């Protein structure tokens, strides 16, 4: 009896178990992995993908998907840079406007999906191309550089010890976790993802809820873009491309289902994001060939999702009603 309980616990928390295993494995390979500095680096690198992945979690919960986040990051970062460099706008205003651009792209997605009834996959694939197209049009594909006033932000510490990007990440996570777990909006979002028809019958305004998730995703993508430029100070034409897949991978590693209704921001998506960054850092520490790294990365993601699929059927088996009387 106790044995099955242990198995059940392990399965239900497979992400966390895998997390700890990978953590220990890299620690054994490269002892320098276990340093405070390294953890701070991992968290810091995780913050921008994490912010986007939180937005992605909202979308995934409704059974949708948002492929436009990488391009949204790019366009918003470009707009922000151009406003500061060429319009000489104060940084704060430029940031606010670039966040609004994110909201705008999210609204376009939301409108097409909930009003025009287009499929999320295609809609966001289109806006992905459009947003990047606009960015390239504005910059003529020339890289944008940011002044020191922006890049110095990455060195600033909130409360004297938390790096700004980590603080933003954790704040986004905290707000999102409360919204999803404790508000009417959040719980209704889970309902919509579980059974759209029933949610409609329960009087939930499903379209509004679904629309809101794309807007949130757009906003957070813009924020993630800004956090990145504070760290790297320069945005080229390929900025953010492919990041949508990291964000999706992070959410799915954290237990979110692509069919909707299942997933959490905390611990789920946070764990997924940090795990991806941890693996990346670990591969560097272990001196793995840089061209092999993405392959190993993909392999680990495959493994995690595979375990998740096995686990789901196993849990069902364990919890299946036993007809026979013992």
């Amino acid at each position: 009896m106790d044995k099955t309980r242990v198995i059940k616990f392990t399965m239900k928390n497979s992400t966390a178990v895998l997390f700890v295993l990978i953590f220990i494995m890299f620690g054994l390979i490269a002892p320098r992995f276990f340093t405070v500095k390294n953890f701070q680096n991992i968290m810091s690198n995780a913050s921008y993908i994490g912010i986007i992945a939180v937005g992605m979690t909202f979308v995934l919960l409704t059974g949708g998907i948002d492929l436009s986040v990488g391009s949204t990051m790019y366009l918003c970062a470009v707009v922000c840079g151009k406003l500061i460099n060429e319009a000489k706008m104060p940084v704060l205003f430029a940031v606010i406007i670039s966040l609004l651009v994110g909201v705008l792209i999210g609204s376009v997605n939301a409108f097409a999906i909930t009003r025009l009834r287009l499929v999320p996959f295609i809609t966001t694939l289109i806006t992905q191309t459009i947003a990047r197209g606009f960015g390239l049009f504005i910059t003529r594909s020339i890289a944008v550089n940011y002044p020191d006033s922006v890049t110095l932000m990455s060195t600033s510490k909130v409360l004297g010890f938390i790096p700004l990007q980590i603080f933003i990440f954790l704040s986004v996570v905290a707000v999102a976790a409360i919204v999803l777990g404790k508000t009417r909006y959040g719980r209704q979002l889970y309902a919509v993802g579980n059974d759209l028809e029933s949610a409609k019958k329960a009087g939930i305004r499903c379209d509004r809820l679904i629309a809101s998730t794309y807007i949130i995703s757009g906003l957070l993508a813009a924020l993630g873009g800004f956090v990145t430029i504070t760290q790297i100070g320069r945005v080229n034409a390929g900025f953010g491309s492919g990041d949508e897949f990291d964000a999706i991978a992070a959410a799915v590693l954290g237990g979110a289902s692509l069919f909707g209704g299942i997933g959490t921001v905390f611990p789920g998506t946070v764990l997924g994001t940090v795990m991806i960054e941890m693996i990346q850092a670990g591969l560097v520490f272990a001196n793995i060939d840089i061209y092999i790294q993405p392959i190993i990365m993909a392999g680990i993601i495959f493994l995690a999702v595979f375990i998740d699929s096995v686990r789901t059927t196993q849990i069902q088996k364990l919890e299946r009603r036993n007809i026979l009387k013992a």
Partner: protein
Amino acid sequence: MAEVVFAYKNITKRFFGVHALKDVSFELERGRILGLVGENGAGKSTLMNILGGVLQPDEGQMILRGAPFAPKNPLEASSAGIEFIHQELNLFTNLSVSENISISRFPCLGSSPLINKKKMRESCKKLLKSLNLDISPNILVENLSPGERQLVEIAKALSTNADILLFDEPTTSLTAKETEHLFSIMRSLRDEGKSIIYISHILGDVKSLVDDIVVLRDGQVICGGPIEDFPIHRMINLMVGREISNVFPERHSHAKDRVILEAKHVSETGIVRDVNITVREGEIVGMFGLMGSGRTEFARMLFGVDPYKEGSITVCTEPLPKRNPQQSIKRGLAFITENRREEGLLMDYPILENIGLVSLPDFSSRMTRMVDSKRLFKQANEIATSLRLKCNDLKNQKVKSLSGGNQQKVVIGKWLLKHPSMLIMDEPTRGIDVGAKYEVYLIMEQLAKEGTGILFISSEVEELMAMCDRIVVWSQGEVMHEFEKSDFSQERIMRIAFRQSLEYSEEEKAVVNGQD
């Protein structure tokens, strides 16, 4: 005369020019249970959807507590005190019981968007207690049994203090015990002054539960009045509009000696134990048992959908490979599943595609693998005609636009096109009306006559007794007893299903005699 809470006045509703409801009027009184019966397609659901705000009538009006009432959406109906308990449950399996109950109107902390979880749990606890339901408000709905889920659905309806409750076939997934519990709750709700409309195909339940009855046929009210005036045979006659002297067709035994299907010592951990069953050519073998006694699970093993650990299954003395439905089909097995919407049909596809689905390989040319659609259409059409399938357009009409009985005929037609030698039918008459049931029975009789072996799973003892040559009774994953036709007795079959001994014990005899 009690107070009239709600009334339909001359309601007419058309879909694409076809009358779904024609001039329907009747009244619902306070503190009464009104039974609404009629064949599938008679207009019951349309009527309920109009009251529930899902549909709007074309003509006529509704009167609620003396005032005209015209809800534009379900939320308006709900805030007017009308709640709908649907045939399909509308629960969110990923949320807790208390969240499900408050999903439309979460109590919040002051004016903040945060949910007042404590208040939510407390009111949920109170509701569950009033329904005698011993579950925690925090448990996720996915961990509940179908019966518990149904009761949660009712708790949800009650949470709004509704005084008109609509129940649409609420017992289809319940065990006999759970059904009885549900009925006692409904009766006590009635005694508290709530008004209930109850829709069901199980006329015995209707008879024992309701106070008044309204019979619908082809969108019109045929008759109504206190239940005392409506014995079951009268209800049936009114519903179908013709005399059905017998609910079941005449049966002849067609069983030959040749064994078609034989299962020997089939076991699977936690599911079934040492099951032995044989079906002969032309024989109809019934499988009776309570919900969850392992009949469906066993049928799935037979057909090769689910695995089994021990034992063997042979078809015409040749062993049948495990977990290989393709082989099972090739060897002449056909499986009409319990759940036609999810497992039996492609609801959004035309009738023809559904009928042809299993037999496509038989209709494709050797060389190019292209489907010979002319030949397929011709044969599908023959089958549809022989099954008396009511439809407008075999090629273009979607299955979901058919009534339940006709949908079931499509499922049967799909397998008949394959000319099976062994047909497994899992609850083939569930949720379809009396007329359609009769036609399904006729098809079974015809197939048996042609030599098909039939394994007939049902939870209605009467239909098994009427249709089967033999009945196998299940309980908790085991075959408890086999009844030959001459030994059929409803009481004895039920006793076995409940794991009682076949004969009364001395004490029971005393009780029975005492009552006499």
